[in-house]
């Protein structure tokens, strides 16, 4: 049960730090005195004997320091000493303390801000069901990064699609709302009918999808190609919606 014994020593040191140090002092001093007495017995003067003992070994102070470093709990003791020292320094120079605290506070704040951004953009999963199966498709013309897709191309893609469960198109627009009172300008998203096959019907709210008359129909989808979606739906999607209209969303099989 050596840890009980070590705890006992630690407790003694906390209770009688001075006595422990005095005893160490005396013990090491006795050791060196015996060496010096031996040197003098060999015919050295006292100073020569002291010097010889120091040269042969380390001086008493170094020896005591080594013992202190070997003691159990020395790390706790040193940490406490460092903390006390830091506290004194900080209290003595409030200007320095102010800027030190300010620096740490800014650092913490910046880290928290960056983390919440990374968390929102990268770490938190999207609110769609099975977001890992949703991809975004662009055209990439030579010498350009990406561009919008012609409606006819989208229809061809949707018709010839063999890789995705559904492909939906989306674009942004501004429309006037004149349903009641003051007419208002609304930003709206225009999406093709498979949009809700791609993103799922969230929270049980029924999106209001109205087929546009005379619009060209993709062969398989069997419903309207372009639809208007009411604003509450748009609002719910705003956070997660990509920013580059028009685009194509698709679900991988």
């Amino acid at each position, binding site marked *: 049960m050596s840890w*009980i014994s*070590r705890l006992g*020593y630690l407790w003694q040191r906390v209770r009688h730090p001075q006595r422990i140090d005095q*005893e160490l002092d005396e013990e090491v001093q006795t050791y060196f005195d015996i060496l010096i007495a031996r040197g003098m017995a060999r015919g050295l003067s006292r100073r020569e004997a002291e010097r010889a003992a120091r040269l042969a070994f380390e001086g008493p102070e170094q020896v005591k320091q080594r013992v202190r470093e*070997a003691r*159990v709990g020395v790390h706790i003791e040193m940490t406490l000493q460092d903390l006390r020292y830091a506290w004194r320094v900080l209290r003595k120079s409030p200007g320095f303390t102010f800027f030190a605290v300010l620096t740490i506070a800014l650092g913490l704040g910046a880290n928290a801000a960056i983390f919440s951004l990374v968390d929102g953009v990268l770490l938190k999963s999207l609110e769609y069901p099975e977001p890992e199966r949703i991809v975004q498709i662009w055209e990439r013309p030579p010498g350009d990064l990406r561009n919008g897709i012609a409606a006819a191309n989208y229809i061809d893609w949707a018709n010839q699609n063999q890789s995705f469960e559904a492909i939906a198109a989306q674009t942004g627009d501004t429309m006037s709302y004149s349903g009641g009172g003051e007419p208002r300008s609304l930003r709206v998203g225009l999406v093709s009918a498979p949009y809700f096959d791609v993103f799922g019907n969230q929270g049980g709210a029924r999106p209001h999808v109205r087929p546009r008359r005379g619009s060209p129909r993709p062969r398989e989808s069997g419903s309207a190609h372009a639809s208007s979606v009411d604003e509450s739906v748009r609002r719910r999607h705003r956070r997660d919606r990509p920013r580059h209209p028009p685009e194509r969303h698709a679900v991988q099989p």
Partner: protein
Amino acid sequence: MAKTTGLLQGTLDLLILRTLELRPLHGVGIADRIEQVTRGVFVVGPGSLFPALQRLAEQGWIDGEWGELETGRRAKFYVLTAAGRAQLAKEKRTWRKVHTAVNQVLAEET
């Protein structure tokens, strides 16, 4: 110091425990005894001896008691405890094992 062969980690503990097995000794007595028995191969300086004594005492293997020298001076004498005796037996076994193994390796060479 010059004569000291590099002590294996843990060897000093074994030497001290073995030295105290015979009778209680103070610091200088322990160092003298080790130097004598090893015929000067191991010279233990106070910088290694006292930290080792501190460690062994904290482990509960030895106990320090104040006594008197012939000169009438107070000195701390170290005594092997029961736990220290058990530890010494364990370290002796380990040492013999290591000793045999190393010897076998060296015998291969010749």
